């Protein structure tokens, strides 16, 4: 009888699995990014597509290289678990859409090698790799990282065609001055520095409606806040993320913004401008929710998210940079181990400090 001498592996229970896997999780996050990405391609044309593609390829390439150098035997499996691809995708979403090719290569190197593999690979990094790369690029190469362009939808005459787009991407073609623009946050910051208050600087191309439908200057992830939000809601509905982090990030940003705007509308941007501009939505739903670099518990994630939101507002309002999401995320990443140490779930039968509950007096003991 075949069953009488089974060589069953001595593995402990459970002998069932829910079917979830790293690859499927990463795949769903990528699906959630598709609508906003496609819309971004339509708005910013071929150069943005090339940038996106090369950033991802660069991340995958550096991942493969690092794994090979470290002597990992399962390169193919690890490479296609989707984590490096997602890092590249998220990084591309935060770059100026017409950034030159070397930004993608350098970004991929910083994200994967410095941001992730030196810590020991997937699951080991302290900081969000995409944000490490974004901040390093911004600080090292401020000029190409702050050159935003006005959207030129693919169906318009001025939009560059495939070849022209490739030339722009490879840096052979100077960006026409007429297309250059500033993002809303950059624009208001410059104008405030020049002594022009928000009541005057916020008009025309920086109206609220443009933020909503995304036809404005910004990164792929900034342009269409509504599509990013839709993707984020899909992640919530499919259980990939919980409400704690995104709600806390948006609340941490919206509450001080509301107070500031109520006190002095000429110097403090409104809640809607804050929430719909920059990387607020992308950060809240896709960046801050990164499993590896955020706290494990719901309550910890609320602390973490509020911190990110508040620091983003502080940097945007008082800091030297127009956008502070990436800085805020990195700062709170550094605090994640501390949050995890202090915010723990209560163990059943113990109090919050880990002491066993008291035995009720009335019962024998």
């Amino acid at each position, binding site marked *: 009888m075949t*069953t009488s001498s089974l060589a069953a592996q001595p593995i*402990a229970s459970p002998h069932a699995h829910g079917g979830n896997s790293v690859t499927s999780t990463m795949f769903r996050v990528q699906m959630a990014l598709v609508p906003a990405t496609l819309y971004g391609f339509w708005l910013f044309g071929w150069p943005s597509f090339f940038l996106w593609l090369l950033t991802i390829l660069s991340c995958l390439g550096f991942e493969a290289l690092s794994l090979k150098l470290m002597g990992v035997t399962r390169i193919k499996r690890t490479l296609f678990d989707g984590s490096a691809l997602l890092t590249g995708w998220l990084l591309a979403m935060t770059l100026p859409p017409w950034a030159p090719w070397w930004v993608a290569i350098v970004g991929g190197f910083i994200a994967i090698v410095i941001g992730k593999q030196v810590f020991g690979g997937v699951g080991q990094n302290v900081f969000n790799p995409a944000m490490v790369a974004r901040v390093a690029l911004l600080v090292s190469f401020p000029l190409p990282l702050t050159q935003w362009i006005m959207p030129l939808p693919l169906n318009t005459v001025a939009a560059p065609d495939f070849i022209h787009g490739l030339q722009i991407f490879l840096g052979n073609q100077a960006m026409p001055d007429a297309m250059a623009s500033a993002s809303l946050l950059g624009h208001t910051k410059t104008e405030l520095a020049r002594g022009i208050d928000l009541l005057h600087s916020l008009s025309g191309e920086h109206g609220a409606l443009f933020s909503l439908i995304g036809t404005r200057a910004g990164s792929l992830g900034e342009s269409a806040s509504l599509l990013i939000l839709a993707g984020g809601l899909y992640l919530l509905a499919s259980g990939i993320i919980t409400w704690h982090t995104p709600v806390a990030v948006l609340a941490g940003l919206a509450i001080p913004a509301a107070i500031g705007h109520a006190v002095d509308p000429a110097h403090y941007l409104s809640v809607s401008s804050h929430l719909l501009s920059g990387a607020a939505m992308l950060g809240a739903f896709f960046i801050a929710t990164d499993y590896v670099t955020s706290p494990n518990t719901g309550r910890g994630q609320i602390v973490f998210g509020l911190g990110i939101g508040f620091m983003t507002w502080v940097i945007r309002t008082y800091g030297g940079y127009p956008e502070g999401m990436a800085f805020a995320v990195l700062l709170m990443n550094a605090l994640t181990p501390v949050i995890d140490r202090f915010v723990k779930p209560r163990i*059943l*039968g113990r109090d919050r400090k880990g002491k066993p*509950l008291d035995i009720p007096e009335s019962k024998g003991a």
Partner: protein
Amino acid sequence: MGFMNLFKTILRGEWGVHPADHKRPAADQSLRKLPLPPRLHLMLSQHVGAAARPTVLVGQRVKKGELIAAAQGNISAPLHAPTSGIISAVGEITAPHSSGLPAMAISIDVDGEDAWCELSPAAEPFALSPAEIAERVAAAGVVGLGGATFPSSVKLNLGRRSGIDLLLINGSECEPYLSCDDRLMRERAADIVSGIRLMLIATGAQEARVGIEDNKPEAIAAMREASARYGEVTVVPVPARYPMGSDRQLIVELSGREVPSDARAADVGVIVHNVGTAYAVHEAICLGRPMVSRILTLNGGAAGMPGNYQVPLGTLVSDLIAFTGGVKGQVAKIVMGGPMMGSVLPHTRVPVVKGTSGILLLDAREAAAMEPENCIRCGSCVKACPMGLLPLEMSARIRNDDLDGAVDIGLTDCIACGCCAYVCPSHIPLVQYFYHAKGDLSARQRNQLRGESTKKLAQARQERLEREAREKAEAAARRKAERAAAQATAATGAVKQGETV
């Protein structure tokens, strides 16, 4: 109180998992009785506590229900012959355990007559005193049939001594694949309720609540009907969620009480028994029948005839499979118990014991093992853990041999329910880590105890040697003094003599 509980539920969030239950088609088949196999093997240790001591000799003829091994010590349970036959051996056979190690068992050659010995059912079961009920339950070898196999009489006595007011009956059967409790409740509800009423008397509790998961509407209806006449027994549907049947979780769900981590259920005034145990209590008291068979679920993708069977204790799993249409296709893994907490069997030549709630013949697809990957800190395990632990942190510490660190964050509170490993997207065998660490921990505690006792012995020896040396020295000094005194007297005697001379 109600509001506080609701608040607590919201604060604690959703614990546990909702595994695919795979209970059908086995749950839809009515109970069937397994024919008698040619030979039965009764493990002497099939309960928590000391192994039973054989009271029969090889070659002796026994009747069904006759005592073949007596309980030893306070926590133990006796064994009875599951059918009539001749004792053929008392020796080692492979234990139903994943280790595949042998243990002592009594083997019986079945004679096929299945003749009961003389039974002594209670004439008026509900007039018995609590002590008498517990005594009869102990004599019948009833143990907890939910899987823990703790001797039931000990728990009944404990309940009476610690003044419990609420008896909880566990009919939740939250493990996937298993439906033996479900079938029992559907078909023998009246007997279960009778057992519950006897347990109420034995424990001194005023009220009994039967918790049944809401995915078993037929069982809920049957139990409600059977208990309608008895106000002290209520049936409470509980949400279907694994591990609802774990005692601490069920106690919170049914009574709103939380058992302190260093205390027992009885300390908060409740005690939990399984529905199967209640049925066994009824059989023991009202029919005088000791525990000689149990109902188990045979299930899994490779099971020929999935269903629930009343199986004589000691039946070999291979006989069970042979009687139920063999296997379908290829068996990849044999599990005793449920898929979440059961253990892998080394092969099928192991006997059914009192704690065997199911035998699962898993096919290759069901038993597929995924290669573990790095933890991505997704926190799924934290959300799933019904105890509020941090499985990912615990496993990280155990991997780094930081046993104390793992204990600090709650390793000893882990109930090994398997929720964490079930949801882990990286397929990390978390429960394996915890078993390993708990094993290390108890080894360390044993070593510590051994070290302490060695130290104590060494100290005692040192003291003894010192004492002996001291006594020797004192004795020597005494002798010397005596000698000196004797010489002195001799000398003075001589002087005196000299004087006289």
